[in-house]
């Protein structure tokens, strides 16, 4: 049973560029959440998708957008990249609406903005 898979593993982009990160959830999961983990910090919630709609959003600017596909996979898009966007981006899948259900995380995409 494949867990959460993310691609690519590493990415280097230039300031001002746009980036797309991809996530496939764990088999049987229908909800995908994205988190940003800056170096030395805990993960920060970006947004969550269920039934192809954004259900909840954290304190991130509109430059961060996402999408969920009918097969539950998801993309995170970041426009007009800033140096401060350099971080590990984590995708987590779970079952909605189970608040008590643990989220399973992918290995992350390390984004470096230069």
């Amino acid at each position, binding site marked *: 049973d494949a867990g959460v898979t*993310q691609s690519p593993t590493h990415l280097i982009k230039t300031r001002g560029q746009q980036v797309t990160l991809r996530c496939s959830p764990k088999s049987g999961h229908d909800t995908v959440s994205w988190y940003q983990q800056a170096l030395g910090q805990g*993960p920060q*919630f970006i947004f969550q998708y269920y039934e192809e709609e954004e259900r909840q959003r954290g304190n991130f600017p509109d430059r961060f957008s996402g999408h969920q596909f009918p097969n539950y996979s998801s993309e995170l898009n970041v426009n007009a990249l800033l140096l401060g966007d350099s971080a590990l981006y984590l995708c987590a899948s779970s079952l909605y609406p189970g608040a008590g259900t643990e989220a399973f995380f992918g*290995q992350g995409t390390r984004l470096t903005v230069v």
Partner: protein
Amino acid sequence: AQSVAQPEDQVNVAEGNPLTVKCTYSVSGNPYLFWYVQYPNRGLQFLLKYITGDNLVKGSYGFEAEFNKSQTSFHLKKPSALVSDSALYFCAVRDSPMDTGRRALTFGSGTRLQVQP
């Protein structure tokens, strides 16, 4: 708003000794609490959770955690530490299940556990 505090940036313990990693939380409703572990250049791996019931929760790899409502704490423990337990540990909270609009996990800043041989 929900929040989590991990007061120790690093915990050092000798192999074979018991370990404790501290976590306190703040939520408006009933808390759902989680512990995750992160190894270098990896994602987060689920260890255990508290939903309701027994205050002592047992999880993976011999870890357990004690929920204390009066102290709003959820400390992670292990009776006998292994060198391989050295990693970054995160406590997380999710707020009341009655609010279906709020599903995000709020994480603490993490505690680095170093187990010396």
